[in-house]
C-alpha cells in the first residue's frame, strides 16, 4: 500500500515539469535554481548545514550533482513534543516568539494569529478539494487513541529501557548476547564517567498540567535525542521537503513511533510519514509532506516581504548617501531581514511599499530556506532545527 503510493509519487514527480519561472513571492514555490541559491546562503550563514551528493543512482538532474540535498547532523531535541501539550493558543504564542525578535508591537500579534488562521483554512479547503486524499491518514478517533496510548507507554518505557507493555518498540534485552566482560579492561582513573543522560535541574516553570507521565516519574531526566535533518527539493510541489532520522541518547536509531513523539500533535501521523528518502537507495526517514508548504510559505513570505520592503525604504530615507542594501548586508547576522521596526504598523506602510516596489528589492529568495526552517520548527517544536535564532 505505502510502497505503491511511494511509487505513484515518484512517477508523478518524474512527470511533472521543472519549474522554470520564479514565483516564490506569488505562491511560495521556488525553482531548483532558487533552491540552490537559498541552500548556498543557508550553508554560508550557518555552516552546520552542508550540501550532500546522495546516492548516485538517485541524482536529480535539475540540481547540481554535488548539491542534491542539504543536511545537518546531530540536531538536539531535549523534550518530547507530546510533553509540551500544545493548545491552539500556545501555538500562536510560539509562532509569535519564533518570528519576532525583541519588543513587539501588539499589532503584530494579530498578524500572526492571522497567519495561523489562514493555515488552518488552507488545510481544510485542501482536504475538501481532495488533494489530501493521497496522504496516508488516520481514520476515526479509535486509532488516534491507540496511538496516544502507545505514546504514553513509550515515554515511560523510554526512561526505564525495557517495559513489558510495549515489547515491539524497545529492543528485547534478551536478544543482546550475554557477553559482558567486565574484566576486559581495568578501571581507568583518567576516564571520565559517561554522562549519557544529562541531568538538568527541575524546570520550575513547568505548570503541573503540562507535565507528562515521563516527567512525573523522572523529573530530573532529560532524554536528549539527536536528529539528522535533511532538506531535499520536491519537484512536484516545487518546495523544499524535510526529512528526519532520529537517535536516542545512546545513539540508537529511533523507531517511527518514537519519532512521532517529537512532532506536534497537529502533524504527527497526518502530514508526517515514514517514507524512503529520495536520495538514498535504502534509507527510510520521517518526512513532512510538502503539500501545504507552498501555501504556508506564501503567507509567511508576504509578511516578511512587507517588513523587508518597509525596512529598506526606511533605510533609504534615513541614509540617502549610503545604499540601504549595502549597509544592511554589512551589518550581517545581527540585522535580521525580518526583524520588524516597531515604529508604524505594517498595514499603513504596505500601500506605499507596493507603489515603490520597483525600487526596493524586498525579500530575496536566498532567505527562503531560513524562513522555511522557522516554519518547520513549528511542526517539530522540540527539535532545534532553527539554529538561526541562536546567532
Amino acid at each position, binding site marked *: *500500500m505505502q510502497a505503491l503510493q511511494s511509487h505513484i509519487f515518484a512517477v508523478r514527480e518524474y512527470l511533472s515539469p521543472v519549474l522554470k519561472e520564479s514565483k516564490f513571492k506569488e505562491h511560495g514555490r521556488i525553482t531548483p535554481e532558487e533552491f540552490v541559491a537559498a541552500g548556498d546562503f543557508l550553508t554560508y550563514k550557518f555552516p552546520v548545514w552542508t550540501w550532500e551528493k546522495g546516492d548516485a543512482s538517485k541524482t536529480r538532474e535539475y540540481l547540481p550533482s554535488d548539491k542534491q540535498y542539504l543536511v545537518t547532523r*546531530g540536531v538536539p531535541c531535549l523534550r518530547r513534543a507530546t510533553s509540551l501539550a500544545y493548545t491552539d493558543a500556545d501555538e500562536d504564542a510560539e509562532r509569535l516568539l519564533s518570528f519576532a525578535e525583541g519588543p513587539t508591537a501588539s499589532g503584530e500579534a494579530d498578524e500572526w494569529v492571522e497567519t495561523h488562521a489562514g493555515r488552518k483554512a488552507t488545510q481544510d479547503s485542501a482536504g475538501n478539494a481532495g488533494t489530501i486524499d493521497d496522504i496516508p491518514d488516520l481514520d476515526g478517533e479509535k486509532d488516534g487513541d491507540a496511538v496516544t496510548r502507545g505514546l504514553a507507554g513509550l515515554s515511560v518505557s523510554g526512561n526505564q529501557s525495557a517495559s513489558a507493555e510495549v515489547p515491539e518498540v524497545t529492543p528485547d534485552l534478551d536478544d543482546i548476547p550475554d557477553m559482558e566482560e567486565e574484566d576486559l579492561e581495568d578501571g581507568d*582513573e583518567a*576516564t*571520565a564517567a559517561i554522562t549519557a543522560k544529562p541531568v538538568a535541574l527541575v*524546570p520550575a516553570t513547568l505548570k503541573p498540567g503540562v507535565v507528562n507521565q515521563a516527567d512525573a516519574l523522572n523529573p530530573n531526566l532529560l532524554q*536528549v535525542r539527536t536528529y539528522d535533518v535533511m532538506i531535499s527539493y520536491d519537484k512536484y510541489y516545487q518546495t523544499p521537503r524535510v526529512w528526519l532520522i532520529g537517535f536516542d541518547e*545512546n545513539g540508537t536509531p529511533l523507531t517511527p513511533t518514537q519519532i512521532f513523539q517529537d512532532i506536534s500533535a497537529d502533524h504527527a501521523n497526518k502530514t508526517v510519514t515514514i517514507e524512503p528518502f529520495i536520495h538514498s537507495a535504502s534509507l527510510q526517514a520521517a518526512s513532512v509532506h510538502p503539500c501545504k508548504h507552498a501555501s504556508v510559505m506564501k503567507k509567511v513570505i508576504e509578511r516578511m516581504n512587507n517588513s523587508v520592503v518597509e525596512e529598506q525604504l526606511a533605510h533609504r530615507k534615513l541614509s540617502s548617501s549610503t545604499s540601504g542594501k549595502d549597509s544592511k548586508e554589512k551589518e550581517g547576522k545581527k540585522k535580521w531581514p525580518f526583524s520588524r521596526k516597531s515604529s508604524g504598523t505594517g498595514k499603513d506602510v504596505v500601500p506605499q511599499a507596493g507603489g515603490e516596489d520597483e525600487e526596493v528589492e524586498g525579500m530575496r529568495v536566498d532567505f527562503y530556506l531560513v524562513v522555511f526552517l522557522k516554519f518547520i520548527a513549528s511542526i517539530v517544536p522540540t527539535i532545534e532545527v532553527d539554529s538561526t535564532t541562536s546567532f
Partner: protein
Amino acid sequence: MPIVQFAPFTSLVQPSFWHELTRLKIDVLKLSDDAVPIRGSYTTGRSVVDRESGQEIALGCNLSVGSESFEKDHKHDRLGSAHASGTVKNYNTIEDFKAADKTALFNGEADKIWNQIVTTRDTSLLTHFLLITFADLKKYKYYYWFAFPAFVSKPAWEIDEAGWTSASTEYTPEALASIYTQHRNIDAPSFFLVRSSGAEVTVGTVESLEEFYSQTPDSPITVGFIDPSANPTNPGWPLRNLLAYLHALYPTKTHSVRVLCWRDAEIPSTGNWKSKFGTVSVPNTESVEGATTKPSAVGWEKNPQGKLGPRVADLAPMMDPTRLANQAV
C-alpha cells in the same frame, strides 16, 4: 593537582552505515569475515541551551559512522570536524561474535597506533577505532561493539590549579579568530600546534613540531585539537593519544604541555568562545628510554547499561517492509 579525566567517545551509527554494511556483506564480503578499513568522523563538542530551564546541556562526545565511512577517499570538509580511521570486523554468526578474541583484536589496533607513532611520527592514526559487528540480516538487527584505544599514562597527566579555563582568558579574540582561520588551512586539522609571539599567533602541524618551535626551543609546547567533548571539565578522548604521542617522541619537552581544546565550529558572533585552555603536566617524568615502550591501552565502549558489553541496533521498525506497511496505514 587533579588528574585529567578524558571524556570517552560514544559511538553514533547512522542507519545508512548498517544499510551499507548489509550491502557490502551480501555483495562483496559474502562469507569472508576479514577486517575492513573504514572511517569515522567527529565534530567539535556541542552544547545546547535548554529553552525551559536556561541551562546549557553538553551533548555527547560522538564519533559517528555512516554510509560514507566505507568510501576510501571520502573528504569530509565540514568546518570543525575531524576524521578517525577505523577497522570493522563483521562476524558471520553470533557465536563467532561472542567468541571473538577481543583482547587480541584490541591490542592489534593499539599496536598499529603505537607503531605509527614511533616509526612515522604521523598523527593520522591517533584517533583510531575498532568495531566488531554481527549483522542479523533477516531480523534487521545489528550487534556491535566499538573500541577507541587510548594509551594510559603512568603516572597520569594532571591539570594545574587554574583548571580548564575559557580559551579567551589565554588568547585575545583576534588571536582565536586567527587560529580558527589558519587551522582551516592546514593539512591534518585534527591536531595542531600554536605558537604566539606578542599578539601574533601561528598554527602548524604536530608533525613539524621541532621545526615549528626552532625559534623558541625553550618555550612550552602548545597543542590544539578538535575537541568532541563539550563538558567544561573533561577534554575529549583524542587528547589522550596526542599526549601519549608527544610524551613518547619529545619526552624532554613535555613535562608541561599547554592544551587548547578547540570547541568552536565557527567564529562566535557574540564573542563567547567555547574553546577551553589548560596546562597539563606529568609529575616526575621518567627516564627517556622509559617513554618509548608501549603503554597499556584502554577504550572499549560501554553499553547503555554502563557495562562493558556490545550494543544492539534494531532497525526492523525502519527497514522491515511488513513493519513499515503496518505503520503507514
